């Protein structure tokens, strides 16, 4: 995939927003990412789940990209990796569905249920949540990347 030509040198260092935003982002991105994972992992105990967690994870990367510009985003999560993660998340979820055949029926909840309010309970619900989170997060981030870094002609000439 050939790179779009680099913006001219004097525009380089102001890629992304001002220093104030960058320092604040350095503090908050980690928290948002952690919060996203909390929502996913506790999907079957508290409100939330694979979809919301995935979107929050995607938003943490969007936050990073808006603050530090495209190159920082490419460094942390290159476009090829998002495509791969999305495909893997999807395959994991279909895999869980097909593994249900072991338990006799398509999508059977074949894992042990565990005692009610523990973290590792409810059979296939947590792994399915994680699979969905990977897929939704990577998918939405690649949509964001494709849409935001879609240069109209006149923007390129500036």
């Amino acid at each position, binding site marked *: 995939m050939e790179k779009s030509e680099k913006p001219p040198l004097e525009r380089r260092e102001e890629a992304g927003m001002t220093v104030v935003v960058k320092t604040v982002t350095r503090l908050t991105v980690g928290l948002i990412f952690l919060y996203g994972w909390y929502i996913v992992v506790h999907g079957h105990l*508290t*409100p939330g789940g694979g*979809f919301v967690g995935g979107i929050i994870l995607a938003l943490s990367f969007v936050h990073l990209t808006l603050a530090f510009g495209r190159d920082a985003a490419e460094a942390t999560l290159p476009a090829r990796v998002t495509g791969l993660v999305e495909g893997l998340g999807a395959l994991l979820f279909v895999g869980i569905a097909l593994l249900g055949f072991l338990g006799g029926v398509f999508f059977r909840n074949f894992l042990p249920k565990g005692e009610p309010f523990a973290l590792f309970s409810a059979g296939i619900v947590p792994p399915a949540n994680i699979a969905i989170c990977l897929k939704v997060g990577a998918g*939405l981030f690649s949509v964001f990347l494709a*849409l935001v870094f879609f240069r109209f002609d006149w923007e390129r000439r500036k």
Partner: protein
Amino acid sequence: MTQYFLCFVLFCVGLYGMLAKRNLVKIILGLVVAEAAVNLLFVLVAYRTGAFAPIVEAGGGPTRMVDPLPHALVLTAIVIGLATTALMIAIAMRIYAHYGTYDIEEVRELKG
């Protein structure tokens, strides 16, 4: 009854935005509003007076709960709405790249 009626009014506003507006982005906004209205109708149907959220507490909390099924359906419908909206935004931006305008009438004339 009035909540259902207001919800359908919101749906009509969204539908009006999709059919009568000429700007592509306004059509997408109409879609977002119409889908919000339908999702709201789902949750309105599920509401039960004096009931609580469908989460079972460890200490045996309240047992009169709201209907969980429409909530699961709304979660699905919301994400489907997001998917359609993202795709339409992508197409609209690509149309803007070709025609230089978001106005659907001009797009039709330029199409030739």
